[in-house]
């Protein structure tokens, strides 16, 4: 086993990885930018090295500098977390060249799965279904129509430029030519690239992913699914395991497909195979993430397996200690991502000092974060403050626990998505478990109305607080008493009262 690991990351995932390292008796090395001198991952670590200015291109993405620190500190292995350098093939290769273990798959597996076209081509050689459609942009409209008829309507026309723009659902053959023309023009004006693809349109799709683990000795297993259909701006907000949509039969088929996917690129380590599943329970390979996933804790909570510990064991050359038949899940876990964003203003990032912090706790309540009262949230990095994961014996109890914990969570001084997550968790469709990836689009207005809903009581509290605050501030600046002093006086007055 390794004696010292460098974590080439920051924020909650750096802390998450360090916790497991320390439990395994491994020393941890942190790296930090100018903006992170007193960040939680620096305070937590055994050693910490400054690697550059705040912008990540000059610090957390500067892999020459990180390799230099790894050599100087005598690090035996590097954990890249997610984001930053975690899917960078050059970094993975350079780390290995330096005689240091990269905790992740081989550079070649990262490369295959990192390229959408290469990944699709690899998958077509296996039994794993991919979304039917043209693999090359449409050159000839009659050829495209033939493909569309083979796939069966409705079909989707997608821009080569990516993203949501230029996307069009076509319900029948006679609308086809007209729709392609429109999509091409839209795509041309949006991306300067008019090429479009034809793909099967999936009705009421679910985003379902499978966690896999593979050792270097040819053993690959899966750890069941995570349901990730609650998204906005193509970004996951809430994930859960098990999925309320998947039954045992489908779970077993998709799990087998996930294992086959990993084997197709000789995958070693922890990885995630993402699928789309339509309302008829047909599933299609979407992509594979060759790293630890943000939402990995929901799998940990229901399986009892520490995924980071497994990553480290695999990287140190050990054989998987668990077989597929050992995987048994208990209860239900839901993760809410807490972002420093103003949900009421189109999720604009929110920065500033956390002036008060109360993190929920108690049975089945886990917060993977990296925040502290008094810390400054800067605009330099991802706005995710952390993830609240609630586990309970069944889905209803896990929903109740999530709602309780979100109600208990208090972050003062900046805006967060805590209340938005609460609106989702108590939405009847989410509670029923009958949602798909259109959930946010479909219920956007309801969710934001719930978020903005305020009773007379709440309005009076808000008005009274504002009045009190303004008068207290006026008072304090008039008499030039400090805030601290004012508080003490106030408290003394309280203490003196006698009902």
């Amino acid at each position, binding site marked *: 086993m390794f004696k010292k690991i460098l974590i080439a990351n920051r924020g909650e995932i750096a802390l998450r990885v360090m916790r497991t390292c320390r439990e395994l008796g491994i020393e941890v090395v942190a790296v930090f930018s100018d903006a992170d001198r007193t960040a939680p991952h620096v305070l937590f670590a055994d050693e910490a090295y400054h690697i550059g200015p705040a912008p990540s291109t000059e610090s957390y993405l500067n892999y020459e500098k990180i390799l230099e620190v790894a050599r100087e500190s005598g690090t035996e292995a590097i954990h890249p977390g997610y984001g930053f350098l975690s899917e960078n093939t050059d970094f993975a290769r350079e780390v290995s060249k330096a005689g240091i273990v990269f905790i992740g798959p081989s550079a070649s597996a990262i490369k295959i799965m990192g390229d959408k076209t290469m990944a699709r081509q690899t998958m077509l050689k296996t039994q794993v279904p991919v979304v039917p459609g043209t693999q090359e942009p449409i050159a000839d409209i009659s050829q495209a129509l033939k493909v569309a008829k083979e796939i069966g309507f409705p079909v989707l026309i997608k821009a080569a430029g990516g993203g949501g723009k230029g996307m069009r659902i076509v319900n029948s053959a006679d609308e086809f030519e007209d729709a392609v023309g429109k999509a091409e023009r839209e795509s041309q004006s949006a991306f300067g690239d008019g090429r479009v693809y034809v793909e099967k349109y999936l009705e009421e799709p679910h985003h379902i992913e499978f966690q896999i683990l593979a050792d270097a000795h040819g053993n690959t297993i899966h750890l069941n699914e995570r349901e990730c259909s609650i998204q906005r701006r193509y970004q996951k907000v809430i994930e859960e395991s098990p999925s309320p949509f998947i039954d045992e039969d489908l779970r077993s088929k998709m799990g087998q497909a996930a294992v086959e996917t990993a084997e197709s690129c000789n995958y070693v380590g922890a990885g995630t195979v993402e699928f789309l599943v339509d309302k008829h329970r047909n599933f299609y390979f979407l992509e594979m993430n060759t790293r630890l996933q943000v939402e990995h804790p929901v799998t940990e909570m229901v399986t009892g397996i520490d995924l980071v510990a497994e990553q480290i064991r695999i990287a140190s050359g050990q054989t998987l200690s668990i077989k597929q038949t050992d995987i048994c899940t208990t209860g239900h876990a839901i993760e809410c991502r807490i972002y420093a964003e103003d949900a009421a203003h189109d999720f604009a990032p929110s920065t500033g000092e956390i002036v008060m912090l109360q993190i929920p706790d108690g049975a089945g309540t886990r917060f993977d974060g990296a925040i502290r009262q008094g810390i400054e949230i800067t605009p330099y990095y991802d706005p995710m403050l952390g993830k609240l994961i609630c586990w309970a014996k069944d889905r209803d109890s896990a929903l109740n626990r999530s709602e309780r914990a979100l109600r208990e969570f208090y972050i003062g001084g900046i805006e967060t998505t805590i209340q938005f997550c609460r609106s989702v968790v108590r939405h009847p469709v989410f509670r029923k478990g009958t949602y798909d990836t259109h959930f946010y689009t479909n219920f956007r207005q309801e969710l934001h109305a719930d978020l903005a809903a305020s009773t007379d009581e709440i*309005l009076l509290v808000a008005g009274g607080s504002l009045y009190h605050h303004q008068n207290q501030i006026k008072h304090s600046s008039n008499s030039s008493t400090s805030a601290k002093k004012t508080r003490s006086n106030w408290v003394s007055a309280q203490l003196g009262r006698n009902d």
Partner: protein
Amino acid sequence: MKFEINTGQRSIEANFSIDSNELIIITGENELRFEATQVQPGVYSILMNNRSFVAGVCPSEANRVNVNGTPINLELLDAVHLHLRELGWDALKEVKAGLISAQIPGLVTKIFHAPGDEVKEGDPLFLIEAMKMENEIKSPVAGIVKKIGVAEGQTVEKGTNIIEIV
């Protein structure tokens, strides 16, 4: 003193008076006893008729209060303001117009207009990149672009004036 608490969508009238360390709030036929104790600067524990709330006054926006986690934008209009409004002045409109500044620190990547352009309410004005995300800022008012305060590619602090619309 008479006040109107107004969120733009709805409003409620109340009379505030101070009784030693409590605020007496009279609204309609209800009399409420409101007591606030500071927990941290700008964060108060509120007991209103023994109902418990945590209220945070937003440090950057004077008219935003977070009650039990829910952010509420409100105007607290006193008798003077209420009288002015009767005379036709609209406090809520007033604060919206004029200068559009950066609500977040970041990099201005795109400005969609030049001085003299006419913009409608809701038109995109500029893009600002922060925390790896691009944010489109829309115009809160209709009018003519009078002045552009920054150039594309410029890094700005929160509060920097970007566009003035008249």
